[in-house]
Structure formats: C-alpha cells, structure tokens
C-alpha cells in the first residue's frame, strides 16, 4: 500500500474531496467556488473547537470536554453584551471572550483535579452552570456585533474567509507545539501512559491543565467569531458543536484511546461534516435519510482509517 494511504488524516480528506465532487455534480456543475468558500467558512468553526477537543482527547481515555457548547454561548453572550454594538470595542469583546475561556477552562480543571471528578461528569455539570450564566446575563436578547467586527468575521482576505484564516493560524500553532515542542511530546506521553510519563519526570497535571485551558479558550474564540459571523449570540448557538467537536477529532484520525493526535485530519473532517450535509441537502434527502446516511458514512470512514492504521 502506498505510504500516503497509511496517513490517518488521508481518509477524512478523501471523504471531503469525494463529497465535494458529488455535491458539485448534483448541482449540475454549478457553484464549485461558492461551495468551497462556504465549506471553508463553516468548517473553520468546527475545526477550531475540534483542535481544542483533540488536545483533551489525546490525554487518554475518559478525557473529553463536554462544556464546549456552553463555553461558546457564554463567551459570545458576554462579549457581545460588553461591546453592545459600539464601534471600537472589538478588542474589549475579544478580551472578554478570552477571559471567559480561561475562566471556564480553569473551573473545569479545578473540578477534575480538586474534586477528582471524571472529566465527562465535571465538564457536563459545569456546562449547566455556564449555560445558566449565559441565560441569566442577557435573557437571550440578541445583541448585534459592532459593524467592523461583523465585516471582519464575514469578510475575506485573498479570497479566503477571515474566520478560516484565524482557524488555520490557531491550528498551525497547535500543530507546531505538538510536533516540534516539548509540551506536545509531554501531552502525547501523558496520553499514552500517564504513570510512565509521571515517572519519567513529565509534569502530567500541568500538561492536563494546559490542555483543558486551551480547549476552553478555543471554544470561547469560536463562539465569539460565530456570534460576530451570524449577527449576534443566541442561547442555543453552541448546541451542534458538542457532537461536532468529537466527530471531527475521530474522523480526522486522532486516536480515541489518546496519546496520538492529528491536526490536518481535523480540517479534512470539518470540511467533510459540512459537505456531507450539503450533499444530502442538494440531493434532496429527507431529514431521516440524511441522519442515517451521515451516520453510516462516518462509521465507514472511522473503520477505514482505523484498520489501515492497525495494519500499517
């Protein structure tokens, strides 16, 4: 088998390319450029939260952040309320979003470390608090982002959506940290065997803390961008990113058992998740058929990617 097929990320990209081709063909060749642009825009949000989730999942079995949707909603709600649509407050908004991310990340990790709660329980319980805070802080009123920020979020540079550029930048930073940095080695070592890593002198708890902070900050940034992109924060805006963040990690070839991460695969998977819905919508599939087919396709890719990896 050619070595390229052994790369775990290749299956997500093959699937994304195939769905793209089928969608364009179904639309009788129209709008390939428009579809690619839309995939880049919407894929970026899934990729940002996916890269964050990947870091946590790489920490090994049981590690996952289920508070991503609530963090997105809380960060977007508080940031947009702080800006209140006033021009010149964009940095203030970003600052609020980042603080929310740091705050929820720290709270999550405190629950996990101090109370020794399993991450699934800790982040799920914490997310109820974050969501309630978001409801309580603004009662679901939709505040518009400042115009310049909305223009940035929906705009493009060199024909690439700005949100995708932000996503690529964040992904690149994580990729470098994982592939070239000591921290990345520590993270993967902790994910492969925390006991061995600890005995080898890896500051496992510090590495875990950084991972949980990073995923929350990434979710906060994604929420902030999404609200700016779509004209305001809504209380249910994060809902679809819970399963999405986990799906793109798995489809992208990151091992659910931890200790092995893969940034390029996240992007392939994020495009795929957007394109498969577009493809089935273009085909005119009903909601039921669409859900079933999406599930079947995802299972197919995960099986393909994991068998190849095991035999490699």
């Amino acid at each position, binding site marked *: 088998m050619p070595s390229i097929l052994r790369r775990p990320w290749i299956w997500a990209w093959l699937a994304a390319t195939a769905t793209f081709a089928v969608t364009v063909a179904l639309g009788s060749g129209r709008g390939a450029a428009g579809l690619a642009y839309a995939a880049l825009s919407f894929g970026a949000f899934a990729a940002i939260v996916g890269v964050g989730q990947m870091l946590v999942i790489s920490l090994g079995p049981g590690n996952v952040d289920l508070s991503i949707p609530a963090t997105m909603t809380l960060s977007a709600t508080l940031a947009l309320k702080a800006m209140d649509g006033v021009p010149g407050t964009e940095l203030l908004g970003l600052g609020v979003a980042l603080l929310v991310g740091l705050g929820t990340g720290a709270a999550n990790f405190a629950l996990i470390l101090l109370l020794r709660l399993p991450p699934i329980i800790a982040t799920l319980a914490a997310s109820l608090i974050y969501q309630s805070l978001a409801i309580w802080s603004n009662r*679901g009123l939709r505040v518009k982002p400042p115009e310049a920020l909305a223009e940035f979020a929906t705009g493009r540079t060199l024909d690439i959506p700005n949100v995708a550029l932000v996503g690529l930048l964040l992904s690149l930073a994580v990729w470098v940290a994982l592939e070239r940095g000591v921290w990345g080695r520590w993270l993967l070592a902790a994910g492969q065997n925390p006991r061995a890593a600890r005995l080898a002198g890896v500051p496992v708890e510090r590495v875990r803390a950084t991972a949980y902070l990073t995923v929350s900050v990434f979710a906060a940034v994604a929420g902030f961008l999404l609200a700016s992109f779509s004209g305001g924060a809504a209380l249910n805006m994060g809902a679809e990113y819970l399963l999405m963040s986990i799906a793109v990690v798995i489809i992208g070839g990151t091992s659910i058992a931890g200790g092995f991460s893969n940034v390029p695969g996240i992007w392939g998977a994020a495009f795929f998740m957007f394109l498969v819905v577009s493809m089935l919508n273009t085909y005119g599939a009903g909601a039921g058929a669409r859900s079933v087919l999406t599930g079947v396709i995802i299972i197919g890719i995960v099986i393909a990617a994991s068998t190849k990896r095991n035999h490699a």
Partner: protein
Amino acid sequence: MTHDKLLLSAILIGSCGLAVGGVAQAQDGASTADKRVALSNNYAGNSWRQVMLQSFDETAKQAKARGIVAEADSYTTSENQATEQAAQIQNLILQGYDAIIIDAASPTALNGAVQEACDAGVTVVSFDGIVTAPCAWRIAVDFEEMGRQQVDYLASRLPDGGNLLEIRGLAGTSVDEQIHAGIEKRVEAHDDFRIAGSVHGDWAQEVAQKGVSGLLPSLPDIAGVVTQGGDGYGAAQAFEAAGRDMPIIVLGNRQDELQWWQEQYADHGYQTLSMSIAPGVASLAFWVTQQILAGKDVPKDLTVPFLKVTQETLDSVLEETPKGSVANTIYTQQDAQSVIADATTR
C-alpha cells in the same frame, strides 16, 4: 374629627371597591382568589422561551397583585427531557397546585403524569408544546395555516411563480411537519411554484445560515423563501454572502429580522411578511386557566391567532420590540374570553 371623616371616607371608598370587585366576580364566574397555579416549562434556551417566561411572570404578578389568584409560579426543567418534566409535574401535584400549565417536551410522553394530575383534581392546560391526554386543555396554533399563508402571500407577490427555498424546523417535531404540510399543499395548488431546495434550520439563525450556505451554490435563482421562524435572518445573510439576488424571505418576528427588513425597505423598497406565534401565548394560557378555575365552560381545544407583521405595521411593531428580542403581545382576560367564545361557537 377630620380624622374620623377621613377614616369614614376611606371605608366608603374601600367598600365601593369591594362592591365593584363583587360585580366583576359575578361576571367572571366563581372567585379564583384562593387558587394556586404553576407553569411547567420544558426548555428556556432560546429568546422566544425567555420572552415567554417573562410574559407569564408579568401576567402572573399582576393577577396576584389584583387578588385574582393566590399564587402563580413558573418552573423550568433543565434538560428538555420528557421524563424530567413528568417528575416535575408529579411534584407539582404533591405541592397541591390547583392548576398546572404545561409547555410540554413531548405531546404523548407526559400523558401519564397529566392523567395523574387530572385524577388528583388538578386542572391541566397545555400550550405551544401541547399534550394529547384527553383530560387536558390544549391551546394550539394552526401551524398548517401558517404554512399555507406564507405560500399564498408569495403567490400574491410573485404572480409568475418561481423557485422557492424551504427552510424547515427541527426534524421530527410535529410543528415542523405541520408547517411543512401547509406549505406543500399550497405549492401544489399554485402551479408556477416549485420547491427547488430544502434545508433544516432548526429554528436557529446560525443553523439556517449554515444550511442555506451549503445548498445555495447548487440552486437556480430563488424567488421566495418560506420559513418557520427564527431562521429568516440567517437565510438572508447566506444569500448576501453568496452575492445572490435577495428573494422574498418570509420572516418570523425576531427583532433582528424585522430591523433588517426595515433597513432593506428604506434602502430599496424591499417588502415581505412576518409571522409567528407570540411568546405572550403564555399569558393567554394563564387567563384561560383562570377562566376554567372560575368554573367557565371552556372547550378542550382552543386556537391562538398568530401575530402577523405587515409593511403597514412594521415600524410600530419594531418600536415596541426590545432590541434582540421577539415581537410580542400580552393577552388579557378579555382576549382569553373571546378566544373561548370563538371556540365555543365554532
């Protein structure tokens, strides 16, 4: 002396008030002053539900202050789960409420708990998310009619017909099915219309924006967009981002949608129609419940009118709607009486 006179007049005025109150009560049936009412709500996570809860609290507080009911509290479950809401209803029965008003997580899954409430002599009134248990009252919206009216409006604006894009709601819900059925029926009747594409927007701007953006590149020119509420602005943004001609998008009464419409109208005379169920339907449910508790003969199935915004009413509705909220109407006791009268004569 003056003191006594003051006291006397105070007593006189007071008893006049009592007398007037007595007359009003005679008109409205038995007194409900000692009755306790609870709202069981399954979900609070969007702006419509938030305004709905506010409307209920506002109405309940006023009714309490006027001595019409003894207590009116609202309870919301955290997880939008039928099992959780059923347990909540059982708790409310044990707490001895005289009536439970329900916005239900499921039309059928709560029927057991609802039956228990009825057996315990509790009046159960469901609205928006209704329950099918025969002992409960239902305040429902004619969602099919909502679908039909959208297509009929587009037909009046687009006599030559054209391609339509349909944005559907949350898959698998009865509301989505009903609005869709109404749309489908009228599209069949108007030969010149064709549904060129359909996406599920889940009644959320972000989801609709994403779905439409993914489908739009493969679609021909779109003349009109039929929606379910909460998704129109997202669709408009998707059309704008793709650089496509703006179709007539039927909106769903959200403030940001209405403001966008007003801007588009000022800019190039863009016209459309907006309609949705007003979150104030909770206040209607409250008054209907009060009427039932007062011993009025109320049919089990009632219909709420939907709140429509037209070009003529746009400016005034927008002015009354708080920024980022949903256009609303608070219903009064008289409104409830006329809705009941309509249902009785039908």
